[in-house]
């Protein structure tokens, strides 16, 4: 744009303020243009979402309490290929369980969100019911301490509101939260490393 538009009809001269305004507008527009250009050149059009890096996660329990959602968008997920299918799963059973049953006193998960199903002797499959899981990472602690670490926390994007600033990340003691491209929104554990 140039100074000519924004002028009042030609019969009266441009007032000083009018002139200043045009100048200011011109400058601001150029400024914005430059900034936008600089940034667009870097951004690849993709958007970002938040995700937890399981390697950095310290399982502190903040994910259950700090999310802006009443029931956290962070859930425990299970990398089955890493799991040992233990009969005595330290992610499922409380320390020193009375017996290896699904009775409340033996379960580790406070909301009983882990389902234990028999596969074949001596193997059991463990899977997460995300409607019950509150992302407290208690099972993750158990699994990581003794087992293969096949249980770990991830932000579930069907629930996450993708706040501009993730409320959990602020308080994450492991600084495990980071922005990832929206087309690869998960940091999963796999068999290959």
């Amino acid at each position, binding site marked *: 744009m140039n100074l000519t538009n924004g002028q009042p009809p030609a019969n009266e001269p441009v007032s000083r303020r009018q002139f200043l305004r045009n100048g200011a507008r011109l400058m601001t527009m150029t400024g914005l243009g430059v900034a936008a250009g600089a940034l667009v050149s870097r951004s690849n059009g993709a958007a970002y979402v938040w995700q937890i890096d*399981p*390697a950095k996660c*310290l*399982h*502190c*329990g903040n994910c*259950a309490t700090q999310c802006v959602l009443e029931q956290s968008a962070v859930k425990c997920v299970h990398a089955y290929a*890493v*799991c*040992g*299918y*233990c*009969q*005595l*799963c*330290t992610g499922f059973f409380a*320390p*020193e369980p009375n017996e290896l049953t699904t009775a409340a006193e033996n379960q*580790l998960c*406070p909301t009983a969100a882990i389902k234990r199903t028999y596969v074949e002797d*001596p193997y059991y499959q463990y899977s997460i019911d995300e409607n019950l899981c509150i992302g*407290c*990472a*208690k099972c993750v*602690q*158990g699994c*990581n*301490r*003794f*087992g*293969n*670490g*096949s249980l770990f926390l991830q932000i579930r994007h069907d629930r996450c509101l993708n706040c501009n600033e993730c409320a959990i990340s602020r308080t994450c003691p492991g600084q495990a939260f980071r922005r990832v491209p929206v087309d690869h929104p998960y940091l999963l*554990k796999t068999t290959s*490393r």
Partner: protein
Amino acid sequence: MKPEFELYDRREFFGVVTKTAAVIGLVAGAKASAEEQGQGTANPFAYDISRFQKTDPKLVAYEEVNRWPIPHKEARRLAIGPNDQIYLCAGNFINCLSQTGQPGVELALAGPACCVAVARDGTIYAGLRDHIEVFDSKGAKTALWESPDPKSWLTGLAAGEKDVFAADAHKLVVLRYDRHGKILGRIGHKNAERNVPGFIVPSPFLDVIIHRDGLLRVNNPGRHRVEAYTFDGDLEGAWGKPTAAIEGFCGCCNPIAITTLADGRIVTCEKGIPRVKIYSASGEFESVVAGAESFPENAHACSDLNDCIHGGIDAAVDSEGHIYILDIVTGDVRVMKRKA
């Protein structure tokens, strides 16, 4: 209409201002003081095993007399040679070290070394992931025993007079070789009529040793016990119970490594709550070599790293009864001596 500014007058306004300032000051001060004595929030979701991580000092029968670092990263196991050299497998290498950790021969392998055993005549058997390589005492490669199964994952070796035993953590079997690499038998695989329950090995920690009583001892992590087999694969007995208490084996899958003292007592290593303990040959808990306190990094690594496959410890015993403990996380070897 009446001009607005009688709604507030200036004095009133400044009154308000000072009040706000005071409030802000108070808040800031309160916050600061709170910071000072900062009581942390308790974590209601803590997985609490702290009571098992303390060892009763009365039970600890050994003391650390020496500690030295190992030459390579990613150590796996160690073994003791005929004249008390220590053989370490770490990364793609097998190192022969003196009892004080002075480096000797180094064998470079094609892949990661998973386990090692040394025969009385000094022959070195190196277990790579799926096959075994044989070296003479000088470190010259003499043979390569083909992989018994592409999916094999060898994690334990024992060399006897005539036989070599290799523990395959994925195929859940202990292979019996003769000294020339011919497979003589498969021990410990699930088998109802020989009432062998079979191994449960969720992570690559299956170990085998030859006991002075002429039987094999194999750890069965998933069943939390140590099993005794004849060379022909008959299950002669088993002991051990799952508990985080000191007399048992903790977690989902322990012990991860075993070795034996000259008098036949058995040394066991555990991960998760890293500790090394001694049991009698018949499985009565006897004493502690090193408790969880001795492996802070290791304990932490297990709760912190992706998984305990990178944690864990191994132990070996020399002719003088010293116990050498390899800490895989800190990458050093501790020499433990029985307390006087």
